[in-house]
């Protein structure tokens, strides 16, 4: 997204009508763009007005007791010096961001967003002629999962029986000659384990047994032991 286009996101951002990746890039832009800061702030009253068209509904009394019980004993932590913008809710932690990315990927899948990665494989003549990647993709229990990266897509095909997964990509944003996309399987606690560097659009067999989700991050060419940048996409493999 170039700089002219990103200003146009101010309205959608204020309404929450951006995906996680757009939100991250807009918030980066917002730090340095006075015009957008002003525009976003100018919508505050309009948003309250919009919210006020939702009819007030008293929650059940039990909810209040649950909340009071769940309140931590200690006082809230004081705001750090030079704190984040006060009129926006707290920034997401990596963990919650990860959950959102999972959610976004699932929504995209359910909503049929970004569908269009063709599956033009043909039944090969013999199993022996199959590459490992093809074996996964043709496994009777193979399941497909999609994610989006900017205007591009990733498609992961995983087979529990083969204990393996493949990745196919389409129109991933270019990363430059000294960088590469690296795939990671995340375990249930979110700990990443390298699943290999992407060589091309694939399909490519990923390294290792698939975890509950897969992330892609941009790394120096040659790859990293652990992600050094925020994942650009996270695909739930469940």
């Amino acid at each position: 997204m170039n700089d002219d286009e990103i200003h146009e996101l101010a309205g959608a951002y204020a309404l929450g009508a951006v995906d996680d990746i757009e939100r991250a890039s807009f918030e980066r832009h917002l730090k340095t763009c006075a015009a957008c800061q002003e525009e976003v702030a100018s919508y505050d009253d309009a948003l309250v007005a919009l919210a006020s068209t939702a009819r007030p509904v008293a929650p059940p009394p039990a909810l209040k007791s649950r909340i009071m019980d769940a309140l931590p004993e200690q006082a809230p932590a004081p705001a750090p010096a030079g704190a984040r913008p006060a009129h926006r809710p707290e920034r997401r932690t990596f963990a919650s961001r990860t959950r959102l990315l999972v959610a976004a990927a699932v929504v995209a899948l359910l909503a049929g967003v970004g569908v269009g990665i063709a599956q033009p494989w043909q039944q090969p003549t013999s199993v022996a002629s199959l590459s490992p990647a093809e074996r996964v993709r043709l496994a009777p229990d193979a399941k497909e999962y999609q994610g989006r990266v900017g205007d591009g897509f990733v498609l992961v095909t995983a087979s529990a029986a083969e204990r393996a997964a493949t990745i196919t990509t389409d129109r991933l944003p270019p990363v430059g000659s000294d960088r590469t996309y690296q795939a990671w399987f995340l375990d249930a606690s979110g700990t990443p384990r390298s699943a290999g560097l992407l060589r091309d659009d694939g399909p490519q067999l990923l390294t290792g047994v698939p975890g509950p989700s897969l992330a892609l991050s941009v790394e120096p060419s040659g790859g990293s032991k652990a992600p050094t940048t925020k994942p650009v996409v996270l695909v739930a493999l469940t």
Partner: protein
Amino acid sequence: MMVGMAPASSPRAREDAASGSGVSGLLTAVASGDRAAFERLYDETAPRVHGLVLRVLADPAQAEEVTQEVFLEIWRTAPRFEAARGSAFGWLLTIAHRRAVDRVRSSAAARTRDVTYERQASAGPYDSTAETVTALLDAEQVRGALARLTDHQREAVEMAYFGGRTHTEIAETLGIPLGTAKSRIRDGLRRLRDHIGGER
């Protein structure tokens, strides 16, 4: 459905919210760990917060969970609220909206959101505001401002705000170019802003 049993907020809450000082003062007390102030803040704002969350989620059980998350986040982040930077009530609603949209985009809610949107959309553009008692802005004024939007703009703004849709999803759902979806959202929001501000 519990929507039918909705009580309006108390006159007291309305007054406080209208001036902004009530909620803002309570938030300041909450920031220093005042549990009694938190309880009052809850009493005064929970119906509005919950109403918004429920409108987005259209699922009472999930809405309760999200309303709980919202208030726990308010407790944690109250010290970061700065009155100079916006209304306290707006701040609460922003947290509530963000959390509700996060939830609606998660897989469980995703299955029902098309249905939800259909249901909301079929109620017609004005039904959504007709019964509302607003705390902060006069209902007439909000209705008047919303009426300044074209049908297309209002549809896009409501799909975004209450449907939890992104501009990309809105373009796809309505079968319109992305640029058109973006400008409907932005122009609609601008008009709403200008007419809310202008008629105050």
